[in-house]
């Protein structure tokens, strides 16, 4: 795509362990336009954080990274090999999950924010401190002058995450990767931080990759959503399209796990049965097949590729939700009582009917 800020093609990350090669990320591709937000959604171990770290050149040296990543036409991995100094932290930065541990406990907040200004932009100490004060104000921290002289342990979790964000924004990046930026925070603080990130992104025309396990977080915040599972892209679509006509059974299952405010209290939470696969095993079929209500015989032997389901909507599934093949697969599995992978369909009888979840009827 022309004019993309970030172009990722066929990104794979492997870790060689004693049990074999762990394929943490397997053939992920996407584009990100300037100023756009991409939501990356998936369970723990789906490879979303590893993808982010690969982009940031933060993976340990023993990680086997393949594929190409271009940032504004420049090859990111080539820059990493050349030890490019003023790229990471300047044009592309990252905010991590846990603000309790992502700040250096022995350095003052001011020191930590001014550091990248001084290293990358060669600001004087005084100018950098003034800028750091401005940044703290932008991220909504009261009394910035006082905060600059405090240590991280003197701040609350929400304030710390704001400091982390201010630190990331210091050099005016064009792309911010936020890796579960609110997972470690209180629910009430979560919304503030997400809204703050959104406002800052808009004000600065910055692109953002928002990584989360919560589909609810990306709804209304991301322009595009990529759903990952076991290192693979399962579905990718503009956000509105994804929520209106999701095609992948995994996306559907993820959405069903979110408790809804209008369900009666004491309704059981609905987990996705089973566990994510050990990605050490070489996968013949679809990695989600063992946990999938729609799985058919072909899912076990033949790994589905991404196919188009409309403008910008890609999905890797043999029996996509809401399509004739998907509807047929699910009703066949329901009447048989088990899926092709041997999953007991009885596990789903407790579920809220899918039709209630407000998406196009999988069961008609």
């Amino acid at each position, binding site marked *: 795509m022309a004019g993309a800020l970030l172009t990722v093609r066929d990104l794979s990350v492997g870790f060689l362990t004693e049990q074999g090669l762990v394929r943490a990320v397997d053939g992920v591709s996407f584009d990100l336009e300037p100023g756009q937000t991409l939501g990356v959604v998936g369970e723990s171990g789906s490879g979303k954080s590893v993808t982010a770290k690969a982009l940031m050149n*933060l993976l340990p040296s023993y990680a086997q990274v393949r594929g190409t990543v271009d940032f504004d036409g420049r090859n990111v991995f080539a820059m990493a090999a050349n030890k490019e100094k003023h790229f*990471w932290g300047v044009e592309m930065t990252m905010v991590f999950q*846990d603000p309790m541990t992502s*700040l250096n406990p*022995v350095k003052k907040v001011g020191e930590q924010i001014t550091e*990248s200004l001084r290293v990358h932009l060669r600001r004087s100490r005084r100018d950098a401190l003034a800028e750091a004060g401005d940044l703290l104000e932008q991220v909504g921290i009261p009394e910035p002058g006082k905060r600059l002289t405090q240590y991280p342990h003197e701040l609350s979790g929400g304030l710390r995450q704001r400091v982390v964000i201010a630190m990331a924004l210091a050099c005016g990046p064009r792309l911010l990767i936020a890796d579960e930026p609110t997972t470690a925070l209180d629910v009430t603080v979560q919304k503030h931080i997400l809204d703050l990130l959104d406002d800052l992104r808009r004000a600065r025309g910055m692109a953002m990759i928002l990584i989360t396990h919560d589909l609810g977080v990306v709804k209304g915040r991301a322009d595009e959503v990529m759903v990952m599972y076991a290192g693979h892209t399962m579905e990718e679509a503009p956000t509105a399209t994804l929520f209106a006509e999701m095609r992948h059974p995994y996306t559907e299952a993820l959405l069903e796990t979110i408790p809804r405010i209008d369900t009666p209290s004491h309704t059981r939470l609905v987990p996705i049965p089973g566990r994510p696969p050990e990605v050490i095993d070489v996968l013949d079929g679809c990695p989600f097949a063992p946990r999938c209500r729609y799985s058919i015989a072909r899912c076990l032997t033949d790994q589905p590729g991404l196919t188009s389901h409309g403008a910008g909507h890609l999905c890797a599934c043999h029996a996509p939700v809401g399509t004739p093949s998907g509807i047929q697969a699910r009703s066949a599995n329901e009447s048989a009582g088990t899926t092709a992978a041997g999953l007991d369909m009885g596990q789903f009888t407790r579920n809220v009917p899918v039709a209630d979840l407000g998406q196009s009827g999988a069961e008609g």
Partner: protein
Amino acid sequence: MTFLARRLAFMLGVLFTTTFIAYAAMNALGDPLFNVVGFYAKVDCDAVLAGEIDDVVGTRPGSSLGECQLVAEAREKYHLDDPLPVRYGRWIGAMVQGDFGESFKNYVPVSTILAERLPKSLMLMGMSMTVALGASIPWAVAAAYRANRRLDKASTAVSFGILSIPSFAFGIILLYLFVVRWEIFPSRFEDDDLFSRLRSLTLASLTLGLPLAAVYQRLLRTDLITTLQEDFVLTAKAKGLSDRRIMFRHVLRPSMFGMVTVVGLNSAALFAGSIIIEQIFSIPGIGRELYVSIVRDDNPVVLACVVVIVTAFVLINTAVDLLYSYLDPRVRRDT
């Protein structure tokens, strides 16, 4: 009570306790009177003065009177008839006022002996500490940066090698090579100017410092590797900082706790080690003086040395405690 005042009170408590134990031991395990006057301490002077016996062997009538005079003078001078706590009180009181007493053997004021000996020992300690820290910090950083690679494995082998050689053997090897064989360093302590003193203490400080450097290196390397796993290191990398900057500006300081603690505790080992090392390298320092004085039963000198060593130890460890709050601001909170 503030942190500092609490530390100070604790320090004084340790000082009084240890000096009392040392003083009591010197008086209870040996006889100070014997140490001063020798075998005349065994003469039953009460009997001599009463005219019941004549002298030690009872051959020359009246000849023991002079000796008994001496014994009586010694008892009087050193207040040996007072109870132990009173004597301790008098001794420590004088000590606090800077009066260290005088040697039993050559009647030289102990303060003169200390003034002569202490600077050399302190210089040796300082140099050994410099060797230990100066070598261990860059060494640990290099090893942690390349953890479990070839350089790190080689450095582990070297540090275990150094640790497995006893310090006196290491000292003698250095002495043989650099003094006897190549004649690079002087064989005796030269006290002409600062340079000659530094030169005379070089081998001794290497002997004391290198095994410590090996220990500190092991400790710091492990802590550095642990700190390198912390999330804030990832944050620092994401900020685009260089590995060198991350290591020295972000990782080193929070990793120093373990090492700093051991540096403080090891300062005692440094004093103990200096007793042997000063012998080997013929350095007229306090360790050597302590050794000689113990052999000669020179109580005031021994006790003065103990006071100096204990004070230094307590001071160093107080400094270490204060250093913690510099290293980690979170420690300051409960002060």
